[in-house]
């Protein structure tokens, strides 16, 4: 079997993934996380926060909940089934920070937790900020000084 033929045969033997089931689970779980976020936000607004100011404490609560469920060993079990439904919201980002922080505690607080905390989240930050910068420059050029 030539290499190309072999690689094709290997892919054809790969067990099928149910994309429909994955998409449905991602939709339901991602939707549920967002609904919880909405409820928390409504709570802060009901408590007296102006609507725009309620986003920051909402994010703090969601990040805390994600960190808690990560520490309890439940968040990864959820993402295993729900995929991007659990990975994409801010809670997924918190999981990506907390899990290496826990994992590398055994190598110390500085070289372990401190150095490795951004192992998964680092690329998201780097390219997220880079993209924001480029988008900002484009906006500046198109809309003129001061933006929209």
């Amino acid at each position, binding site marked *: *079997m030539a290499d190309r033929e072999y690689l094709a045969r290997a892919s054809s033997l790969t067990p099928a993934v149910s994309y429909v089931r994955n998409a449905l689970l991602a939709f339901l779980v991602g939707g549920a996380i967002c609904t919880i976020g909405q409820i928390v936000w409504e709570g802060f607004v009901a408590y007296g926060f102006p609507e725009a100011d309620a986003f920051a404490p909402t994010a703090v609560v969601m990040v805390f909940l994600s960190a808690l469920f990560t520490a309890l060993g439940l968040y*990864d079990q959820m993402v295993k089934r729900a995929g991007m439904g659990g990975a994409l919201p801010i809670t997924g980002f918190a*999981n990506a920070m907390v899990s290496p922080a826990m*994992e590398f505690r055994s190598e110390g607080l500085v070289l372990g937790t401190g150095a490795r905390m951004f192992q998964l989240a680092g690329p998201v930050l780097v390219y997220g900020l880079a993209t924001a910068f480029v988008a900002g420059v484009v906006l500046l050029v198109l809309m003129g000084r001061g933006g929209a």
Partner: protein
Amino acid sequence: MTTTMLAARRIGRQTTRLEAPPSIGTWASVAGEMEAAGPLADGFDQSYSMTEVATLGPTFEQAEAGLLKEAITRAVGKAGRSPGDVDRLFAGDLLDQLVTTSFTALALDMPLLGVYGACSTSAESILLAATFVACGACDLAMAATASHHLAAERQYRYPIEAGVQRTPTAQWTATGAAAFLVSREGPGPFVSAFTTGIPTTKGVTDVNNMGAAMAPAAADTIATHLGAVGASPEDYDVILTGDLGIVGHQLCRELLEERGVRLDPDRFKDSGLLLYDRHRQDVHAGGSGAACSALGLAAYLLPLMAGGEVHRALLVATGSLHSPTTSQQGLVIPGIAHAVEFIEGAGR
């Protein structure tokens, strides 16, 4: 010296026959919770729940060394010996610079020759131990290996608690350890010949499909061994590959069929498929890890041979010789497979 006096004889570039086959008289295996819930559960000397494994050491790495230490101590104990009686320890694991092995030998005060063959370490250690014993370089040698699912995950993949979806071709690194005591005299099973593998690739770079990366090496080694010893697949009651999993095992069978070597599915087994029940346990394509083939040998093949149900068998342990660095640099995964032939006492 005439050739008849040689204890080991070259019968091919890669293959050696041991004229006075050393005996693997005693062996021991210890395993984790997932393995103890699998089909080979009865074959382990000891199994540990997740929390019990954690008591073997404060870190995953130290727990892995604890597993290896336990397997070695039990194997020598069964022979009525102590680790101090073993002349040479051939052992390896998957972690960093063989730290599991080194720290175990440090704790047990054993003369160590560290072996790195990734998941093929079991066969590589056994063939080295058998050769040393056959040639008289030592009287009592031990071959051993270990892996720990969580220690391997954190080194090769993602943090344990990170939410990640595994691909269907991914395999589950086994938690466990096995040790095999090799001596010149003994009841057997005996190591009669072996074939050393050559690193092989057909271009697989996906670290989540190591079965496909290793299958060409397994096929090459099986064909080479059969050719060198002049045997056909039917001469073996069992041909046991290491950790090809569901995808790699099928690919290996097809590669061999292309060469005209047909393997009977009832005799062609894979430790990665024996260790877990894929339909019941969430291991995707099957088991892997240095302990996988070692547990298959200790809990499945050797007990069958000792019980007289299997008379001649071939262990073909398979390994992926990549590192996270080479994979991130886009290099192929070199596969390797070493074959060790076992015969029962009566066949000697």
